[in-house]
């Protein structure tokens, strides 16, 4: 729902300018990833915040913290990837779909979605222990997500621009992969500390 309404907003904003046909690759990428960013922030925030207080104790006695965080990460990962694909579909319906290089772009979506989901899951875990404040999660998460967005937009712009796989694209993809590997590992290590209490 959120995705749909934000895409509509973008569509109307662009219509006003009457320049949909000339949407440069970078602008397209930026808008796309921003939409995904905001929808995933909302979705993931809910994953931790909606749980009533008592349930945390229940989890604490039942399963190890690692299992909990793995489960949350996995669930958020699936959810965000689904969300990204959905946004892509709607975005390409409303605004033009200039993607030329489909494999790279799909890889980008998946990697970007995982990046977002891991990052914001960890942040919402932290923020949920700090008073269930959604703004806090955003404040904590945005500085860390900015480099991620930079890379995602670069990659998607490259995917739009040319169909071949350049060296730089490969490098960016490797970076994203590294980013996605580092995060769950860190989260796994750190979560038990956040969890205690």
């Amino acid at each position, binding site marked *: 729902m959120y995705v749909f309404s934000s895409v509509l907003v973008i569509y109307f904003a662009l219509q006003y300018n009457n320049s949909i046909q000339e949407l440069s690759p970078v602008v397209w990428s930026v808008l796309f990833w921003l939409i995904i960013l905001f929808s995933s922030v909302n979705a993931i925030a809910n994953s931790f915040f909606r749980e009533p207080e008592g349930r945390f104790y229940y989890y604490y006695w039942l399963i190890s913290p690692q299992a909990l965080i793995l489960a949350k990460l996995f669930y958020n990962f699936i959810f965000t990837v689904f969300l990204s694909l959905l946004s892509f579909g709607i975005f390409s319906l409303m605004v033009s779909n200039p993607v030329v290089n489909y494999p790279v772009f799909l890889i980008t979506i998946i990697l970007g979605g995982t990046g977002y989901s891991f990052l914001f899951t960890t942040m919402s875990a*932290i923020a949920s222990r700090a008073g269930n404040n959604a703004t806090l999660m955003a404040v904590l998460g945005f500085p*860390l997500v*900015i480099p991620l967005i930079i890379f995602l937009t670069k990659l998607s712009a490259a995917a739009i621009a040319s169909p071949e796989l350049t060296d730089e694209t490969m490098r960016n993809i490797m970076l994203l992969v590294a980013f996605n590997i580092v995060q769950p590992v860190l989260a796994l290590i750190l979560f038990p500390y956040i969890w205690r209490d």
Partner: protein
Amino acid sequence: MCVILLLYVVLGSYMVPLSPGISKVEPLSIRPDSIYSLELSCYHTHFKNPGVGKIQFWFKSGNDYFPARELRILSDNKIEAKFGVGSLQQDSLKSTNFDIVGNDDIDGTFALREGITLIKSTQPDSASTLLAKTGVVEVVHNKHQFLAFPYREILYESIRNTFFHVPMWFVMTALVFFSLVFSVLYLNKGNMRYDIYSHQSIVVALVFGICGLATGMVWAKNTWGHYWVNDPKLNGAAVGVMIYAAYLVLRGSIDDEIKRARIAAAYNIFSIVIFALFIYIIPRLTDSLHPGNGGNPAFSKYDLDSSLRMFFYPACIGWILLGFWIFSILARMQLIKQKQEL
């Protein structure tokens, strides 16, 4: 202590003059087969000084030196030189951009790299006036008569900012690394002292980071013309400052001490690792205006002259000591406050 070092650095950075160089040449491009009268504006040269000895000027392309035909001194800083290049030589040249090299007894050797371009003529004239080409150059590389900083285009005098801007970032990196160590120690041992240490070192790191950004912005405005450029290192630096501001916000929002310490330490470790990944690796991979990036290591031999080095190493050490001093003061204050509350 660091007081002496810093005073030395700051005073020295201003007093030492810039070494001589050629700042401007008019016209910018020449064609072969004519003799041009080039007006060279130089910087910190002493052409009218009686001790100047023999003034020589050359065009230099690769290993070929073309001496000037005639020199006329206009003032201490301006000189007019007549040069010409024969069109028959134009094909044997390595590149069409010549360096202009000058030499005299007081100023040593100074140059303007790629100062003048040769527009090749399409019809070589065999009866042209060929310039005598000196294969081996009798360049006497005089030592500067005084200590001087290297003369770099674009930077000119603001090269002195290296002693302020770069050490700031060193201090911030050192303090951030310290904070990481303390956070890990805290999570392992649970001693509240480590939490205080990591908190205070982040505070000081943030202050130095803001200083680093401020010096960088002023420098950028002066040399590149804008306060902020879309450059990965700058963006990374801004992101870093934001991350630590977020850390402080996080600390402010939790009231329970132990919980605050634990969660802040976890966030600290998580963000430092990601931040380090992005701020150190990315600038080396991409192009940037920032010196030391775009494929080059941070401090290559090319960037740091020996005279700069004389000031730069003490500057780094001095600023780092200052940063640690401030950190230790703050940490001790917090410790005392904590003890008094007990």
